């Protein structure tokens, strides 16, 4: 029936969405590339073509390299840890734990709280001398430590917040996947005398694979776009120890007003996201094996 409709009908239906998608996703992505080879217009100097100059500046910019390193490290640590924790959580609340409903709520709560709000509370936890962690460690006689003020611990401190924020969210997906695994598999495994670990390793884990792919992709994308807690807790410091790509873009563009340089930085971030997208489609192809 629909096939007989005029061919402009579907396009008309798509038009508003496509216009906005192009205006706020595709056009800005292309414009970013374009602007990255021009200089930033300043008072008295208009924007001129500079070729790869912004990228050369990028290559010589230690802050950029640090932001890139930090961001990769950030993804490399927070993604696996959050995922392992979320699986453990899901396995726990899949069983008949006393207070299971409350426990699920506890794990999921961070996902629903605004990062900007909870970051303020974490800021207090990390505060030296009278912050919660400082109080506890002083009570045990471990002394005081300025977690966010020391370059060595500032990034790990932010990672902890991210893991706390994301693990419970991912748990929901694992819990849903666990509940879809047929109980007959557990019975069969029990008859075979499998241990819990064997059952997890040989049955649950492979069946959770599609969920893991989905969660990993989302977690990696999040690792490159979550910066709310950086704004609240460290502003990239101390000494750029917590500088992340998106936050650096924000700083360069809206504090230093160097939009061309920010464009070059954005191109790097887009490239990373494109790699994630490519991997995603490759993985989604192989995913059919599990279904």
């Amino acid at each position, binding site marked *: *029936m*629909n*096939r007989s*409709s005029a*061919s402009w*009908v579907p*396009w008309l*239906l*798509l038009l*508003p*969405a496509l216009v*906005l998608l192009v205006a*706020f996703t*595709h056009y*800005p992505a292309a414009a*970013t590339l374009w*602007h990255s080879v021009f200089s930033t217009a300043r008072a008295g100097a208009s924007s001129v073509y500079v070729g790869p100059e912004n990228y050369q500046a990028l290559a010589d910019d230690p802050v950029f390299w640090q932001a890139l390193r930090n961001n990769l490290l950030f993804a490399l640590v927070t993604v696996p840890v959050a995922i392992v924790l979320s699986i453990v959580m899901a396995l*726990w609340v*899949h*069983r*008949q*734990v006393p*207070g299971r409903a409350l*426990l699920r709520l*506890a794990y999921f*709560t*961070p996902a*629903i*709280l*605004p*990062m*900007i709000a*909870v970051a*303020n509370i974490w800021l*207090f936890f990390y505060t030296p001398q*009278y912050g919660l962690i400082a109080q506890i460690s002083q009570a045990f006689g471990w002394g005081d430590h300025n977690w966010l003020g020391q370059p060595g611990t500032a990034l790990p401190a932010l990672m902890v917040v991210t893991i706390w924020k994301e*693990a*419970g969210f991912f748990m*929901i*997906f694992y819990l*849903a996947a*666990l509940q879809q695994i047929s109980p007959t598999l*557990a*019975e069969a495994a*029990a*008859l075979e005398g*499998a*241990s819990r670990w064997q*059952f997890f390793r040989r049955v*649950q884990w492979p069946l959770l694979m599609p969920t893991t792919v989905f969660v990993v992709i989302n977690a990696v994308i999040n690792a490159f*776009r979550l*910066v*709310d807690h950086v704004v609240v807790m460290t502003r990239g410091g101390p000494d750029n120890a917590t500088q992340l790509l*998106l936050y650096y873009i924000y700083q360069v*563009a809206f504090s230093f007003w160097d*939009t061309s340089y*920010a464009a070059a930085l*954005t191109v790097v971030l*887009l490239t990373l*996201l494109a790699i994630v997208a490519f991997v995603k489609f490759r993985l989604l192809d192989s995913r059919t094996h599990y279904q």
Partner: protein
Amino acid sequence: MTTSANPSSATGTSDAAARAGKASASLPAFSPTGRANLLDVTGAWLLGLLWLLPLLYGVWSAIHPSAYATRFVLDAPLTLENFVHAWQAAPFGRYLINTFVLVTVILVAQIVLATLAAYAFARFTFRGREVAFMIVLVQLMVMPDVLIVENYRTIAWLGLRDTILGIALPYFASAFGIFLLRQAFKTVPRELDDAARVEGANAWQVLWRVYVPLARPVYVAYALVSISHHWNNFLWPLIVTNSVETRPLTVGLQVFAATDQGIDWSLITAATLMTAAPLFIAFLLFQRQFVQSFMRAGIR
């Protein structure tokens, strides 16, 4: 399904003993959905408490005088003054309205645009459909949050700087919403569609009377995900807004915590709770729907 042999036996050893005493001694007391042992329970609850700790501290500090913000004694006097002070110290009422308007505007626009687009993708075959769908899918990877510089330029060019519409506009077309609704529309049986058309309904009427009502659970799921996302969104509103009249709660909280308050933790946590409270209360009331929404949104 096998369950643990003895409900009162919590430790692994007594579990094993109980198991050995059972007639079917060859069956291990093992079940992935069965009763947890003591180790599981302790671990699960320790982690649970750890996960709740920031919220618990926030509540503690907000309902006690500043002097007790960092001193945890049981006889600390209770007070609501921190909320009153925070509410008076910054225009949180205004921020709340702004957030409310922002979230509503985004949701309505997203639902209308996504419905139209999803219908086109699900029920029409036309030249260029694959290309159009690719154009949509790209946004799943590159969200407007990442393209802050160019989007700010566009918003400024449109004269929408420091307006709620300026915060909202980049999110109107949601690839995620289109994708979700397309999947839902595809599951609607063709026969229903055909029957409606035989009755003389046109494309609009079929969409409105058949597809939209049948996809209601997906709309609810999408709405909850969208609302919670934009209630909590921060970086883009921070960039676009610079006045009280347009700031949402998240940006308002940051301005409040960063400039006005120094280190009065009681005030900051009171403001923090006020920012999170409306969505959090909604979450407590509709917990099941929220969780299912995120699940449904993720699985598809």
